[in-house]
């Protein structure tokens, strides 16, 4: 029992770390020849990856996966809510600035 759990946790950690390292690649791909550029694609990708990581932490590390339905739904709703807030403020803000 303990073995499978620990293996699973190790895999989870590896996945999370890989996603973190993906940010380095994302960061390098954003600049063209060292010129800084605002990029909606990078922004949205960064936020989405972060939220996916948050959900994995919820489900695996925080053991929501074994939790009652209410808590599982609630944490999922929260991830969606955060996404809505973050992307919403980004896009609505962009639209207002023009």
């Amino acid at each position: 029992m303990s073995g499978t759990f620990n293996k699973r946790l190790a895999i989870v950690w590896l996945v999370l770390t890989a996603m973190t390292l993906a940010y380095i690649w994302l960061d390098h791909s954003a600049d063209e020849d060292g010129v800084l550029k605002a990029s909606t694609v990078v922004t949205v990708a960064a936020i989405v990856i972060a939220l996916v990581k948050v959900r994995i932490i919820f489900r695996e590390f925080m053991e929501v996966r074994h939790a009652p339905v209410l808590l599982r739904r609630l944490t999922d709703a929260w991830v969606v809510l955060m996404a809505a807030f973050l992307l919403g403020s980004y896009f609505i803000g962009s639209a207002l600035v023009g």
Partner: protein
Amino acid sequence: MTNLQEDSSTKADRHATRFVPGQPDMWVFVLFESLLFTGYFSVYLVGRIQNRELYLQSQAALDLRFGVFNTIALLLSSWAIARCVQASREGAYRDALRDAFLTIGFGVAFLVSKVLEWGKEIRLGNTFTSNEFFQHFFFLTSIHLLHLLIGFIVMGVAVYQLRSPARRSQQLVETCATYWHTVDFLWVLIFALLYVVR
């Protein structure tokens, strides 16, 4: 992520008894606090859009390596505390205690690297009052660091629980772990927003 989810819906799992890890009360904190931080993040993103060039230039002064190192340090600590919860659930308290100390160790690594990073930025002349980006940078990182410091107190409670057979309360250990994971996932968001977002 998808394959992990498929794993979780295997039959054996579905029949296992459902339980809330730790005190359900702690989840109120987790949800409320993440909502609060979402508020801070939204304010930051809106400010960013209004002044893209300034934020981009200032962001370039940040060292992505610090951010990545910090994220991995906290992910390691989260991993350790998750193992600690498993070990203590199975009664392996020596292992649990070791994992708890590992958690604190990775937390300290994060703390040291954060302070070094601040020192570096301040030497570069980027302080809390320099410009809008650094206001947000120092604000978000220091309020998060405050959570981490409280996290050390929380880990102290967990170690105190694990130490003596008379006190051991699995629920309290899980509550402490939930708090620590919150510190972790808040940093995951802060890292993405401060270092990577363009």
